[in-house]
């Protein structure tokens, strides 16, 4: 989604000096070392970085799954740093959609039910059917995960993430477990929901090619932001190859 010139894009996330230190036994691991960042409404951002660069930690904190050791993070006007578990659950429930590397579908629920389990607790969801149509799986809605391919499972996961009409969609290596051909179909689905629903979409990847479909690319290394660049020529997902 692009912004018409002159209007200031609305800030969805704002972080200041975001720091995360893990105590791993006797070792202290600095996953984030002071991140200052703003993410804007409706944009598609790719977080690029090698394994261990801190990108997952950042997304986990943005998604309300983890809390920072130091610094602040705001979702719109809500200070997530101060939120307790109940508030974070509430936040995830109504504002965030997650897509995981390994899909994390519930094996005992069909595609439609995997979506329904989220829509039933959301405020203003689309129907599970509509969500599945959006990712091109309208004809597989009564299949169980074990009856779906990896790519199909990931698209169900995307449908599940977007069905609540979240304001942010957080995807951690969504193509990490897929071959490139299937991966592109999944990215197309993400591209489409970003365009049609206008959710701020953050895609984590270590695959630089995927960055070409983003409006902005944020590079992380060793817990620091090393580069933020705006793509001048955004590629469509189907034109990517790796």
């Amino acid at each position, binding site marked *: 989604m692009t912004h018409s010139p002159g209007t200031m894009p609305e800030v969805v996330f704002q972080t200041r000096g975001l720091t995360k230190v893990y105590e791993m036994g006797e070792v202290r691991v600095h996953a984030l070392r002071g991140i200052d960042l703003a993410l804007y409404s409706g944009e598609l951002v790719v977080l690029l970085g090698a394994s261990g660069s801190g990108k997952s930690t950042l997304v986990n904190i943005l*998604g309300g*799954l983890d809390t920072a050791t130091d610094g602040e993070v705001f979702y719109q006007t809500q200070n997530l740093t101060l939120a307790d578990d109940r508030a974070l*659950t509430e936040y995830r*429930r109504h504002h965030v959609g*997650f897509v995981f590397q390994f899909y994390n579908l*519930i094996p005992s*629920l069909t595609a439609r039910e995997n979506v329904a389990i989220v829509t039933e*607790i959301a405020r203003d969801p689309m129907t599970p059917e509509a969500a599945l149509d959006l990712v091109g799986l309208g004809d597989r809605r009564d299949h*169980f995960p074990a009856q779906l391919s990896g790519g199909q499972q990931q698209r169900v996961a995307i449908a599940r*993430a977007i069905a609540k009409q979240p304001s942010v969609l957080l995807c951690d290596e969504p193509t990490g477990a897929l071959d490139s051909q299937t991966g592109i179909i999944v990215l197309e689905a993400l591209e489409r929901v970003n365009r049609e629903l206008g959710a701020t979409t953050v895609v984590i990847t270590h695959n630089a090619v995927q960055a070409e479909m983003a409006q902005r690319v944020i590079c992380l290394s060793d817990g620091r932001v090393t580069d933020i660049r705006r793509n001048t020529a955004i590629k469509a997902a189907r034109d990517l190859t790796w």
Partner: protein
Amino acid sequence: MKAIDRKMVRDLWGMRGQALAIAFVFLSGVAAFVSMTSVMDALQRTLHAYYVDHRFADGFATVRRAPERLLAQIRETPGINSVQSRVAAGVNLTIPGFDEPVSGLIVSLPEGRQPDLNRLFVREGRLVAPGRENEVVLNEPFAEAHDLRPGDRITAILNGRYTPLQVVGIALSPEFLMQIQPGSLFPDPRRYGVMWMGRDALGAAFDMEGAFNDLAFTLAPGADPDAVIARLDALLQRYGGQGAYGRADHPSHFFITEEFRQLEQTATVLPLIFLAVAAFLLNIVVARLIALQREQIAVLKAFGYTNRDVGAHYAKLVLLIALLGAAGGTVLGHWMGAGLGNLYLEYYRFPFLHYSLPPAVVATAVGLTVAAALVGVLQAVRRAVRLPPAEAMRPAPPAVYRTTLVERLGLQRFFDPPTRMILRNFERRPLKAFLTILGISSSCAILIMGLFFGDSFDYVTRVQFGIAQRENLTVTFTEPTSTAALYELASLPGVLHAEPFRTVPVRLRHAHRSYQTAIEGITAAPYLRRPVDIDLQPLTVPPEGLVLTERLAQILGVQAGDEVLVEVQEGRRRTRAVPVAGLTRQFIGLAAYMDMAALNRLAGMGQALSGAYLMIDKDREADLTRTLTDRPRVAAIMSRERAIAAFRETTAKTMLTYTFILSLFAGVIAFGVVYNSARISLSERDRELASLRVLGLTRGEVAYILLGELAVLTLLAIPLGFLLGAGAGAAMVQAMQTDMYQLPFVLGRRTLALAAAVVLAAALVSALIINRRLNRLDLIGVLKTRA
């Protein structure tokens, strides 16, 4: 320690909560087995030693009066080894400070020495000195109940004469391990006691000089008891013999062996349930562990560990848990056994108890534990070692689910996705769900099996004493008495209503079957003593014919309309064929009823009564008791109500302890099953549940999915447990039917409620523990790990 063993120890540590829960189930089973079996063994050995040391007789006979010289003849009867003649008589007693009726049995002791058979164990004081007329030795429970010690005095009415007696000793006898008043249900040492007096004094009092009315004998090795009894009966018939009987029919011995049999039953069933549950728990826990360690097994095998090595690795882990339970159970069982032994020692009044823990019991317990443990995990371990390493290194294929039957029936719309998850989990692994239910239900069943006796007993009391036996007091005369005595009784102050009865000892015969009992003659329209039919409605005894209790009819193989041969065992000892007019339901004793007039005609001794049932004014009971005790012809005064109340009182505390221990045991099982099932479900599904938390489901919503499943299993288990418990209880009751009791199987609401409550409480505790773990789900971890 080898590396693979170190892995085993750490795995065990990692699953310590579950291992401990399972070890506790083993522990409970082994403790139950060890304590009960060792106590059984101790009781049997003690009883045997007691009988041998104190020369408990093999048989007994009662006669009206037989001359001493008959003894020589009896001694020569083939099959008889030794004989002891005695005088035994019922007495009424006055104990200072105790207003209620007290009856007793006085048995003679040879002058100045122990009897040849049924010797006494003198606890305190001494035996009666030769020639001392007023000395008496009391049975210990009776002495204790009234706090009587050597030197104290009591008064007995011996054959109508007030006789002051001095207590010189307190003793025990193998013959009166259970001192139960004839016609009574349980020992009531405050109101019935056994005592011993010198032969000469007692003989003089009862006109038995140079004669006896009671006989004990031992059998020659290899003698056929039935043949000996028949010979004795023939010999004693003309002296008013009332039928000799063997040790098996001796009330005290019968009672005690019956109790031992029940104890033995429990000692077998209870531990087996525990071991089966423990085996099941080990199975599910180890199966899960192996599933989680699929890749580790593959690596071990890839590096050259054999199937046997891997199998032994898991077998060791399992055995460690089982043996931990067995060791703890043995220690606890030994301790409990010693405690139980002391309880039984006090209860049965053995002079000593040879309690020890036989090595064979420990070996059996350990053997059973090991066997249950290995059987429990055999299949899981076999599956682990069979998997080729290459395959095992790949992740397990995703679980396959289907829509459930209920949903396919079109009921789907009634269930939200979390509920569908619960349903589909059951349908995917129905056997596991069923075994879990079975495991939980067994704890419910154990409680019911242990506690229904109370309900049955209450029911019996209600029926027997609310409908059939409504008298407050039963007065028995020393011998059949003219009907005028009834009016005398009825006119005593405090007596509201008096109803006569006549008891005639008989042997009933039908075809080749026979049974020794007494026929009770009652009035045509009884108000107090009313036999009931199978619908528990009072029935009318017809002017002619017998009404038999159901079990007696069964023993004789007769139905209403058949004829039985009645051999009267007193007076002119007539034999007559009498038709069976009907059957009566009675839970205690094997009685036969007849119209009193008809019975008197049958006995041929004119119209007489043996005693009367009284309804009395309770405010005047003490005076009435004193008056009745003073009457020379009153042999016994019995208050059934008080006996029951006393029994309740003495058993209430024991019952409470027993209920508590049983609840604890059942709780251990329920907790073990629910907790382990929940832990495994959590381990299998933590990823799925964490994903849902990430997607915005609250803790409560996620808990519903996991704990809802357990709640369903628990709620299904409770009615199944009721059914299993009821089935087992009914079978126990069936196995326990004796001539003395025919307990019905009755299950009260309180028992059911307690059983359900224990299961629910155990489930709740497990749920709370699991819920704490659920709150600590790793939300981030699941995003990055493979299913």
